[in-house]
C-alpha cells in the first residue's frame, strides 16, 4: 500500500540528507520526495510517498520522529486529500505529428511551454493516473526527456497541516 506523508521540518542545512539517509539505511523505499518552503519561512514541508504495509509505515514514522529537526508527520492517505505532481515532457515532433500532439495537450489540459523546430516541451499537472496516461499517449511520438517534481499533497477542507502558534513559541527549560 502507498502512503503519502506530509512532513514538517525545521529549515536547517542537511535536513534532506538526514531524511534521505534514514530511508536508505533502514531499508525503506521512497517512491517520491518533494521538498520546499511552507507557509512559515523557518519550516520546510516534505511530501514523501512511501510503499509499505502498516508496520513499515509505523517504523518510518517513528524513525522520522527521532530526527530532531522533524516537527510533525501526517499521513494524508488516512484522510480526504488532494495530491498533484508537475511534469515536463520534451517530445519529438515532426511536421506531420505536431497537430496530433497539440490535440492531446488540449485533451489532457496540459500546456506547451516551449516550441522548438523538432520538439515541443509540455507541462502537465494532475494526479498520478492522469499523468501516466498522458505520458503513455505521447510515447509513440518519442519522448526525448521527462522530469517529474514528485507528488505534493494537502488535506481537503479547512483542516490543515501546520504547526500551532503554541508549538512555535514553546521553549524547553
Amino acid at each position, binding site marked *: 500500500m502507498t502512503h503519502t506523508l506530509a512532513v514538517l521540518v525545521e529549515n536547517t542545512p542537511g535536513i534532506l*540528507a538526514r531524511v534521505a*539517509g534514514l530511508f536508505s*539505511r533502514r531499508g525503506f523505499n521512497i517512491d517520491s520526495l518533494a521538498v520546499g518552503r511552507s507557509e512559515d519561512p523557518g519550516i520546510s514541508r516534505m511530501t514523501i510517498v512511501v510503499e509499505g504495509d502498516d508496520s513499515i509505515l509505523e*517504523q518510518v514514522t517513528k*524513525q522520522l520522529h527521532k530526527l*530532531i529537526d522533524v516537527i510533525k508527520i501526517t499521513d494524508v492517505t488516512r484522510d480526504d486529500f488532494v495530491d498533484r505532481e508537475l511534469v515536463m515532457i520534451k517530445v519529438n515532433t515532426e511536421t506531420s505529428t505536431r497537430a496530433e500532439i497539440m490535440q492531446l495537450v488540449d485533451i489532457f489540459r496540459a500546456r506547451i511551454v516551449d516550441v522548438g523546430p523538432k520538439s515541443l516541451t509540455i507541462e502537465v499537472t494532475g494526479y498520478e493516473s492522469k499523468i501516466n496516461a498522458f505520458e503513455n499517449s505521447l510515447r509513440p511520438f518519442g519522448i526525448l526527456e521527462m522530469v517529474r517534481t514528485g507528488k505534493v499533497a494537502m488535506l481537503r477542507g479547512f483542516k490543515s497541516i501546520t504547526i500551532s502558534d503554541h*508549538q512555535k513559541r*514553546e521553549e*524547553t527549560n
Partner: protein
Amino acid sequence: MEITVAEALVRCLEQENVNLIFGYPGGAIIPVYDALYNSNIKHVLTRHEQGAIHAADGYARVTGKVGVCLATSGPGATNLVTGIANAYMDSVPMVVITGQVPVSQIGTDAFQEVDITGITIPVTKHNYLIKDPKQLSQVVRKAFHIAATGRPGPVLIDLPKDVAQAKIKFTYPRNIHLPGYKPTYKGHPAMISQAGKIIMESKRPVIYAGGGIRISNAAPELKELAETISAPVTHTLMGLGCFPGDHPLFLGMLGMHGTRYANQAVTECDCLITVGARFDDRVVANIEGFAPDAKIIHIDIDPAEIGKNVQAGLPIVGDVKQVLGKLLPLLKKRKNADWTARVQAWKKEYPLDYIKDGALKPQFVIEKLYESTGGDAIVVTDVGQHQMWTAQYYKFKEPRSFISSGGLGTMGFGLPAAIGAQMGASGQRVVLITGDGSIQMTLQELATAMEQGLPLKIFVMNNRQLGMVRQQQEYYCDKRYMAVDFQFDLDFAALAGVYGMAGYTVKTPEQLVDMLPAVLASPGPVMVNCLISGKENVLPMVLAGSNINEAID
C-alpha cells in the same frame, strides 16, 4: 565584553558542569585548546582519538553525566566514529566537539577536511556544524539537552577554526527552542492500568530488563516490582547490575549466551514484562520461538523500539522509572508458588557450568574475581569470550558497576573505558577484564592510565587467539580456523613492566588464587596475564536459527 567563540565554548562547558574532558589536539581545534588553558576543566590527553571517545563513554556510563570528548578535524574526527557509534548503540550521553577547517575552505577538500557531520548522521542522536558564531551557545545548550534527555545518545558539534576565533558577546541561554524534540516521560495511564491487569492475571510472569533501568535509575522500582509479584528477572547485557546478581529471583542474562533457566523461563512465561530493553537479535534469536505463549508488555522511552523487532501486545512509551512508579501501586503482593518452584528447579538442574580439569579456566578466574571483590568493584570488559564469561559468572550488585560495549561490540573499548570509569569513580576499584585480542586494539592507552596515576587492575584472558571468532568457526565453518591464531606470543607481564606497571603471569588456578588478594589490594596499577586454555567455548550457546531454549552446551 566580547570573547572568542572558543572561549565561549569553554564557558558553556563550565555552565553545563563539565569538569573533565578527554581529547587529542590538532590544527583545527587549537583555538579551543588555547581557551582551555585558563579553565579549571581538566583535560585528559589520550594516545589516540579512539581512546578519548571510549574514555568519555566509560566516564558517562559510570557517572550518569554527559561525557565530553574533543578532537581535531579530518583524521581526528574520523578516529572518533567507532566510539560515537558505540555510544549511540548503547544510549550513552555524550557531547563530541570536533574542529573543522575554516568556513571558506569547507567543501574544497582542504587539508584535514572531512564532512564529519555527514559521516556521523547515522550514529549520532543529532549533530551540528556551526557556521555562524552567534549560534554557539544555543547549539551547545541544545547539544547537552539532547544528549542527556529522552533516550540518551551522542551529539556532535563541528566547529570551524575561523568560527572558533570569531568574537561574540557571551550569554548562556536558559531556554532553548526544539519544536521537534519532545520525549515522552509519562506513560499513558490507561495503558499502565491495563498492564497492571495483565500482570495480576498472569500465572507465569517474567521480567526482562535492559539498560533502560540503569539510564533512568529505576533499579529500586525494578526490585520492588519483582518482589511484589514474585516474578523472576532476567537481564540483557546492558541491564546487568540493575537487579542484584545474588537475589533468589535473578535468572542471569538471557539470549544467545544466556543461562538455560532464563531462556526456559522466557519461553514458558505467559507474561513478559519488558522494561528498557529492545529485543536485540542476540537476545531474541528466532523471533517465532521467543516467548511464544506470553502477553508482551513493552515499556520503553523510545517509541521507535516498540514493534521494531517483536510486536508487543501492550506498549507503554515513557520513562521506565516513572512508568514503574505508576504501575507498582496497581499491583498486589502475590506468590506464584508453582511457577517459582519450576523456575527454581531449572536453576538447580541447568546451572552455568564448566569442566574443572585443573587447567586455568577463564570462568574460574571470573568466579574468583567475584569472590575476592565481593562484587564491590566496577568491572569493565572488552568484547569477545571474556565479556560473555564475565556477564555469566560475575554477580553484579549495583547499577553502573558493569561497563561493556553491547550493541556495537567494539573490541578495544575496554582499556580506555576503564580509564574513563576510574576517573569518574576515583575512590572505587576498577577491574578491567579483557582479552589478548581486544586489549591490543587500544593498547597505547596504558600510557594514559599511567600518566593519570590510575590504579587499574587489568586481567588479560590470554588464549593467544580470537576466541569468539574461533568458536563461531568451530560451529559454523566445520573447524576451518581462519585468521584467528596469534602466532606471536606477547608477554603481557613484561609489557606491563615497560609501561611501569606491575605485571604477572598466571598459568594455574593455584597461582591465581595465591596472587589475587595482593593484586586487588595493591594501591597501584597491575596487569595480570592469565594464560587460559585456547579451546574453551562460551556455553550455553544458541545456534543461529534456533529458539532461545534450544541452546547447546
